[in-house]
């Protein structure tokens, strides 16, 4: 690892993003708009006293799901461009280490994701009055870890696509099953055994679980920490797999 090269990569990726203000606006604004939709969706629900609003549960999970989905898409397309434009091959003839490149990417997009989740979390709290027991800082942390997960999966998936069209098709394959099975729609203990077993090996499950821990407890719990460690483990494993797809020598 060489910090200078990694940082140069982070700066470069952010510079590329800066030249595309529309994407930045979409990244920052869309989550809040969707939160508003969710808020109004449950506006008229009638709740027995003491039961938390559905928005507090669903909105909270969405705070973790947005950065995951957005960063997955942004990364897989950016990395695909890097592969098809020849810049990746060229970079790999320079002294840069694969880790510098991957972590440079991960850092750039997680900075974006941090910004995105700060905006979305602020809107959820102050505009829509989301109330959970835990600290909002933890929510942002989970969102950032999730975005890095999206970056890692995007980097990996870009290796299996040859066009941007194909890269987008990975979203239904990689992202949607995780959203379906993470516990957002049906609590995981109410799923049948097969689906629950699948959800046990999907990383998003653990982020959502961490958020539920944060919602239920005013202090950080050990099971939240475990969840975060599991997601981080997934990130490292996926980044390692992704680094195998960066080949310096090809046929």
């Amino acid at each position, binding site marked *: 690892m060489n910090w*200078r*090269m990694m940082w*140069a*990569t982070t*700066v*470069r990726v952010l*510079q*590329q993003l800066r*030249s*595309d203000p529309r994407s930045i606006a979409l990244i920052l604004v869309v989550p809040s708009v969707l939160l508003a939709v969710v808020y109004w969706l449950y506006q008229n629900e009638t709740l027995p006293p003491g039961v938390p609003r559905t928005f507090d549960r669903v909105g909270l999970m969405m705070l973790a799901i947005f950065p995951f989905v957005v960063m997955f898409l942004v990364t897989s397309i950016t990395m695909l461009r890097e592969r098809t*434009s*020849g*810049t990746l*091959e*060229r*970079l*790999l*003839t*320079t*002294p*840069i280490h694969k880790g510098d490149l991957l972590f440079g990417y991960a850092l750039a997009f997680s900075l974006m994701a941090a910004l995105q989740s700060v905006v979305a979390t602020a809107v959820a709290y102050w505009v829509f009055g989301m109330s959970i027991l835990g600290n909002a800082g933890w929510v942002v942390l989970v969102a950032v870890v999730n975005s890095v997960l999206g970056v890692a999966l995007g980097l990996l998936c870009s290796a299996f696509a040859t066009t941007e069209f194909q890269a987008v098709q990975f979203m239904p394959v990689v992202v949607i099953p995780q959203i379906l099975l993470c516990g957002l729609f049906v609590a995981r203990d109410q799923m049948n055994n097969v689906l629950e077993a699948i959800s046990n090996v999907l990383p998003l499950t653990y982020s959502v679980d961490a958020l539920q821990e944060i919602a239920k407890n005013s202090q950080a719990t050990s099971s939240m920490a475990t969840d975060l460690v599991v997601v981080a483990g997934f990130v490292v494993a996926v980044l390692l797999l992704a680094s195998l797809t960066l080949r*310096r*020598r*090809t*046929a």
Partner: protein
Amino acid sequence: MSHRAQLPSHGAVVHPPVPAHVPAGAAANGHMTDSVTVDRLVVHRGRTDVLRDVSFSIPAGRITGLLGPSGSGKTTLIRALVGVQRITSGEVRVLGRPAGDPTLRKDVGYVTQAPSVYRDLSVLDNVRYFGAMHARSRADALEAVAAVGLGDFLRRKAGDLSGGQFNRVSLACALVSKPQLLFLDEPTVGLDPVLRADLWAQFAAMAASGTTLVISSHVMEEAGHCDALLLLRDARLLARLTPAELRSRSGTDDLELAFLRLIQADERAQAGPGTTTAVDGAR
């Protein structure tokens, strides 16, 4: 304006003919060190032979032209020298180390045929990023941009430039590292004659200051700018000679015609062993 008028003084140096089959490193011109030695290089892609038993050496501090029709294996050969090509057999040594050795990455520059830069970054940001891989400063980046004549376009997005300018951004990204050995795959394709002449003058200046350049082209006229030529055809190395030798051997000053004659002679030699020709080094 003749292309030869652009040649710097060192262009007149005549290298002794080096038969292509002489093992790498054993070049007759012992006073000159070789930057690259290739010994019996074979590359198959699927069932096609992309390179068949190619051996040669490349002198340091010179411009070596890699010429041949498109599809003759030029890009694959350059990729093998850079170390990004999976080879089937043979040995490629670059600056005394095996091609692709990690320690070579700081000494070797590679400009791919298709310009490989970030379209959504400015000219300067592109060059600075590739410079950062070699710990080069902003001043180095500015120098490289100026060297390719894009000093007025520093802040322009690379993707907004014309084709020829875009090409030169790619070149600047390689120049910024000040490599000891620079591989350029068809750097002059699609450039207008003035720019082409400028670039060749610049390559000559780099060679004069000690850089070894390997430049591929399918335009035979450009062979005149090189100190040594490698002629590729159909995955084989047809000959390794100097432009002067090519002219004298084929009895014409027209390099295009000279190459054609060399090919014809080679075809005759292949057809019947009795009809020997003047094509030394061809196999």
